[in-house]
């Protein structure tokens, strides 16, 4: 495969994703012509690109789709569920066609789908002809949008227009959205002593080429009709903007605070047309239409271009950038260390500056590798749509905070677990329409995906308004499975935690409980692999909410560097609550590992003993209190060295079992410090307490 083909593949994948997204929005808003245009445009690009880069099947297939949507665009085929179903299936098929190897199975699908699509375009075309003619009678303007017309608009607001808060400039702005414009600005200022600062002395002349009907121009001025003199006159039955020379000529005549009369413009146009013998081509209706569509394409690509504010960069380059930034952070740390050691005054300032810049560079570089959750949402919408069809349920997916950004590797890792949660909600959470009505709930079930930031974490909540999970049932099941004793007393949270135990999740549990539990242990494990956590809350007949708590980024953290004997460790700053001083005596002689700090009691770990570090702890130690969920726990260390930016590096598979550490970092002096995973330390502690 050559480079161009690879480029096309990337582009085509994007296009197909856009297509899918647009189709789903079309389903919600079937009459939105801008969505239909978008769909048509995407299909067109796919067809063109496919043909050019040797994906003939793709090109041919898209051609049939395009034909149907061309009819939709012309209101000759109605958007309905059946059409959307076929098109969405086609989207999947398009993805298959992009794969290098076209198998006989794909070819067969290709034929079947093509048949269905062709049939669709023919059938619907006929069915709708009668309605169509009716429509045409009702709305003769319907076909006009195809072609451009150039108008001369005079907009002369009265002096008092601004008294009621109208901003004439906004109207001009609105006009410019209708098409291409030339604007002529005129002002008639009175002598200074007569000047009333609140009054308007300006007027405008706008030459507008648009494919929108005349009414939409008048609509722009609908609220100022009484406060302004407005004249809209047609000057040319096409867009003048396809003739740059003509546009230049007209704009030359504009300005000088003078109104250019409509008749004069018409004259200019007529001269130009005559000189260039354009009239012939204009007579041919088809060509006019074609010109119009070219202009329209230019117009849309023009507006597109001005909107595009992002560029495509290969992820390799980003990874490389991240690696370099990581190196820089490490090197900067050694510089600080060197400066501190040698106490070089001149260098201190520079070093601190570099530290600040490095920190900013680090933060910026990180935002580059963040992508919004939106990328996933389309897939989820599709999943919800398909599955709810399959189960015969009526479910809508509502998202909030889709713009929340996450590291791209994180996005990849949460896709599967999220799909799983959605599947659970659809299959088991949401009741059938009958059940829902019987319970007095709205017939349509709702699934919410809500994402938001909280500190250095992103929370993603997946909730439904389904039947909820009965804790008694979980308890019963867990007892049967031998996971718990029948007589234990468990809090609600502890009961829900049972769902995440590997032994609980067997397929037979499920359907009769409420379904959760299938593979919930897998979900939990996957989320924990990326240093996240899962939390479940449920109310019977109200619904179930699962909250995923994920770190925003994986590779650099702010940490607290602490000493234990000759070794150094890092505690992530995000979990640190407070640091207290404590004597070695208090720590050694504490009862039941509880220490009183600042009048409050905290359970604590003496890390020096726990990690079997060398040497003796000093007389005055420090206790770092870290929090996790609602729990707080003290970690006794020899002493706290200070704050540090840590580039998190994996410890490697060999240390998979050493759960206390989420990674390691290289310090300025080249030594390695291990990074504590405090949530693991705490949960280990909790387990120990339970055993005791």
């Amino acid at each position, binding site marked *: 495969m050559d480079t161009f083909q690879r480029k096309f593949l990337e582009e085509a994948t994007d296009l197909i994703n856009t297509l899918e997204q647009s189709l789903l929005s079309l389903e919600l808003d079937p009459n939105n012509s801008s969505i239909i245009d978008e769909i048509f445009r995407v299909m067109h690009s796919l067809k063109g690109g496919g043909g050019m880069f040797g994906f003939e099947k793709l090109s041919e297939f898209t051609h049939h789709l395009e034909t149907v949507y061309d009819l939709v665009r012309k209101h000759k085929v109605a958007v309905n569920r059946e059409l959307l179903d076929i098109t969405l299936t086609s989207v999947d098929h398009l993805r298959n066609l992009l794969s290098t190897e076209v198998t006989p199975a794909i070819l067969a699908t290709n034929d079947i789908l093509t048949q269905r699509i062709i049939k669709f375009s023919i059938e619907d075309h006929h069915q709708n002809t009668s309605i169509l003619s009716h429509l045409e009678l009702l709305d003769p303007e319907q076909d006009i949008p195809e072609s451009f017309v150039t108008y001369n608009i005079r907009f002369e607001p009265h002096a008092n227009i601004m008294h009621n808060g109208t901003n004439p400039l906004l109207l001009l702005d609105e006009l410019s959205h209708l098409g291409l414009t030339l604007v002529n600005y005129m002002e008639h200022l009175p002598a200074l002593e007569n000047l009333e600062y609140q009054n308007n002395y300006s007027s405008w002349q706008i030459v507008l080429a648009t494919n929108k009907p005349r009414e939409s121009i008048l609509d722009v001025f609908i609220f100022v009709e009484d406060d302004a003199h407005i004249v809209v006159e047609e000057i040319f039955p096409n867009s003048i903007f396809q003739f740059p020379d003509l546009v230049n000529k007209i704009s030359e005549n504009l300005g000088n605070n003078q109104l250019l009369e409509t008749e004069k413009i018409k004259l200019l146009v007529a001269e130009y047309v005559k000189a260039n013998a354009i009239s012939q081509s204009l007579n041919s209706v088809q060509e006019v239409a074609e010109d119009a569509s070219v202009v329209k394409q230019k117009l849309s690509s023009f507006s597109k271009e001005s909107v595009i504010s992002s560029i495509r960069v290969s992820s390799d380059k980003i990874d490389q950038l991240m690696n370099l930034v990581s190196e820089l952070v490490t090197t900067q740390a050694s510089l600080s260390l060197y400066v501190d050691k040698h106490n070089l005054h001149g260098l201190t300032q520079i070093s601190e500056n570099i530290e600040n810049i490095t920190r900013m560079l680090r933060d910026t570089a990180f935002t580059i590798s963040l992508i919004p959750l939106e990328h996933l949402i389309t897939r989820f919408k599709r999943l919800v749509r398909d599955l709810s069809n399959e189960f015969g349920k009526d479910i809508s997916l509502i998202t909030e905070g889709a713009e929340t950004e996450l590291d791209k590797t994180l996005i990849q890792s949460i896709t599967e677990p999220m799909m799983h949660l959605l599947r659970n909600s659809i299959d088991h959470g949401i009741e059938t329409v009958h059940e829902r009505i019987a319970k007095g709930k709205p017939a349509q079930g709702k699934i919410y995906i809500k994402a938001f930031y909280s500190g250095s974490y992103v929370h993603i909540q997946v909730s439904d308004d389904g039947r909820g999970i009965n804790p008694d049932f979980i308890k019963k099941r867990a007892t049967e499975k031998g996971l718990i004793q029948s007589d234990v007393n468990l809090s609600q949270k502890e009961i829900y935690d049972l769902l995440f135990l590997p032994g609980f999740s067997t397929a037979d549990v499920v359907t009769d409980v409420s379904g959760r539990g299938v593979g919930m242990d897998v979900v939990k494990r996957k989320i924990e692999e990326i240093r996240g956590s899962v939390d479940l809350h449920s109310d019977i007949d109200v619904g179930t909410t699962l909250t995923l708590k994920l770190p925003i980024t994986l590779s650099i953290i702010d940490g607290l560097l602490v000493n234990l004997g000759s*070794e150094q460790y890092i505690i992530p700053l995000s979990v640190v609550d407070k640091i207290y001083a404590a004597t070695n005596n208090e720590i050694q002689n504490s009862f039941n590992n509880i220490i009183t700090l600042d009048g409050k009691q905290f359970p604590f770990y003496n890390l020096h003993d*726990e990690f*079997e*570090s060398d040497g003796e702890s000093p007389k005055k130690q420090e206790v770092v209190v870290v929090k996790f969920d609602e729990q707080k726990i003290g970690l006794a260390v020899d002493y706290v060295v200070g704050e540090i930016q840590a580039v998190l590096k994996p410890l490697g*598979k060999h240390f998979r*079992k*050493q759960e*206390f550490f989420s990674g390691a970092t*290289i310090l300025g002096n*080249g030594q390695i410090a291990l990074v504590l995973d405090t949530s693991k330390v705490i949960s280990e502690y909790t387990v120990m307490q339970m055993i005791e």
Partner: protein
Amino acid sequence: MIQETNQTNSYLTFRLANQTFATNVNKVMNILEMIPITRVPKAPAQLKGVINLRGMVLPVIDARIRMGMQSEEYSKNTCILVMKINSDFDEILVGTIVDAVHEVIEVNQGIIMPPQTVGAKYKTKFTQGIIPFKEKFIMLLDIDSMLSVQQQMIAE
């Protein structure tokens, strides 16, 4: 004689206690002098810890302990071999501590003998074959399985 006899491979030889071992040179990425190793608390004994290899965090395994031999103080001859191993369908780098590194030898494939399991003072499950060399025997190690992640897990 069989055809294969013409084919020769290069092996790096090294010493553990008083036995010479060999590994295919393609597996050896780097030979480091002994440097301080950062201990990982609560890890199995043969997992000595991690070192900083040009900005990368590299796990280090003590070959003596791995082979079931007595561990000894490190000397000035002690080296860390950085090996590239296949583990879980992945290629990963692992450091392994050996008593001393000897030389690279060319070995004709035809002379390699099947491994012997009798009478050895160390675990023989990692020996792939025996190379007769200058009236001595060199044990050819299966580095992939010796340093693999699974083996480290089973070990404890």
